[in-house]
């Protein structure tokens, strides 16, 4: 009895020590973000004091006010980013789900060949496409407009893969029963498959939101006017202008991360599941 007890206690002690070590390790990885947030509330003289003030002695809100109020357009960048991210977050999953249904549930000629083409397209690095897209968008008159980010963003190979994977796992009996009741593919898709696949749609929508929110390359290449800039591109501009105003830089960086943090905490369950299943199974 005694030895069993001591074994349990020993295991608990080891588990507690592990927990503490892992907690410290996670804080180390989180430290850039913690430093960013704390610096955004500091006064200039406290930025580089050492030992680091993780919690500012004398917190101020002025840096955050300055970021939003100086009229450097940060508010506008935010609005642009939100607009584009939200349109894509709704549009991309819907278009991907339609295609995923076609690829997984309707047999038609050339289906496998087209899917193979999708696989090949996934391997092409975006850099290959920048030059021709730049020329094409110029010709289509959408260069230097938000359409240059929205239109191509609506079509994702990754989304088709992820949602197709899920559709394949829906038992055929379900759609067959609906067929017998006289439903067509469109009714089955909208009234049966879309509601059933809410978790995977939400996961992809979240992943797509973060991609769009963080997309720096496309904005850099296809946007010219400052008033069209998105947050990543606008932030670069902002950082250059801020110079050595590190407090304001960190306040801007914090603002740039906040939407991602909100999405992360709200959708944590979906995100972790979605990331793992898309990788492990697919």
């Amino acid at each position: 009895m005694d030895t069993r007890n001591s074994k349990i206690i020993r295991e608990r002690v080891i588990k507690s020590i592990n927990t503490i070590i892992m907690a410290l390790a996670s804080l180390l990885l989180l430290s850039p973000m913690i430093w960013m947030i704390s610096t955004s509330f500091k006064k200039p003289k406290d930025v580089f004091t050492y030992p680091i003030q993780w919690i500012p002695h004398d917190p101020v809100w002025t840096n955050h006010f300055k970021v939003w109020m100086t009229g450097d357009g940060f508010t506008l960048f935010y609005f642009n980013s939100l607009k584009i991210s939200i349109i894509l977050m709704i549009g991309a999953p819907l278009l991907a789900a339609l295609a995923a249904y076609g690829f997984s549930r309707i047999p038609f000629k050339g289906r496998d060949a087209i899917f193979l083409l999708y696989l090949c397209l996934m391997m092409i690095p975006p850099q290959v496409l920048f030059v021709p897209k730049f020329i094409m968008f110029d010709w289509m008159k959408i260069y230097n407009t938000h359409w240059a980010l929205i239109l191509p963003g609506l079509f994702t190979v990754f989304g088709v893969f992820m949602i197709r994977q899920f559709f394949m796992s829906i038992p055929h009996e379900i759609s067959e029963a609906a067929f017998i009741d006289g439903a067509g593919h469109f009714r089955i898709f909208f009234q049966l498959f879309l509601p059933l696949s809410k978790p995977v749609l939400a996961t992809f929508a979240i992943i797509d939101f973060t991609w769009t929110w963080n997309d720096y390359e496309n904005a850099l290449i296809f946007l010219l006017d400052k008033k069209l800039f998105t947050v990543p591109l606008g932030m670069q501009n902002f950082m250059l202008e801020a110079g050595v105003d590190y407090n304001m830089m960190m306040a801007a960086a914090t603002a740039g991360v906040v939407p991602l943090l909100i999405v992360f905490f709200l959708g944590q369950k979906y995100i972790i599941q979605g990331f793992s299943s898309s990788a492990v199974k697919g």
Partner: protein
Amino acid sequence: MKRQRLIGYVFIAPNLIGMIVFMLIPALFSFYLMFTDWVFASGQSPHFVGLDNFRMMVRDDLFVVSVKNTLMVLIPVPISILIGFLIAVMLNNRTYLQKTLRAFFFAPYFTSGIAIAFVWMVLFQPSKGPINAFLRSIGVADPPLWFASPDTAMYAVLIMMTAGGIGYNMIIYLAAMQELSSEQLEAAKMDGATFGQLLRLIIFPLVSPTTFFLMITGFIGSIKGFGMIYAITQGGPGNSTTVFSIFAYKKAFSFYEMGYASAVSWTMFLIILCITLIQWVGQKRWVHY
């Protein structure tokens, strides 16, 4: 049956048309451009020059530099995979608060982007920044200048990339480990295997397909990586952080040499293809399905 087929096309059409317009046609166009000498806005139409762009490229100093730098940015991949693996092993039933810790480790990956890149830039500030302040406090008299010097800028990039990749690798490993049966583990524990033996001989081989997946996608991601490096350094100081993607970008959008830039970007595709093929062939030696 015929109607059935037609409906199939209707479902994939919206996505397929987008793919053709925004990926397939640009890819084919770029494939054609790499054999031409076209310079955007020069007023000249493209001339077919065969493989001249590739001959020019191998003699280009920037090509050599960017290949070297691109090989450098592969280093963080195995390191962050190993760290991610060890963290996943610990979080898989060896700690309390597993869900909280999992979120803590994953959050930095999830939020990393241009904003966090600028945070790293300030953290690495050479004269007063927190990282060098720490190094001085533990007795490093002459800490590196990081992004400010061509000799060390790449190391700062590598540290930034390693830290950014850990959370993702951890999540994927954790998912893989939770699907494993615990029988083998229990049996090995009964036989008195040490923790190190358990890791090396049982857990690591069992998750080797996941490691393979992470290596391939990690290498590809690293080669394609552009934003976080370019936003901080623009490929500098000098050309010390010019990786392949920045090389291609500069040729296209600083010099408007569209033909040459297309050749550079397709070379990048070839590098990705080669690395993937090499790993594919090599996997038989260590991946157990």
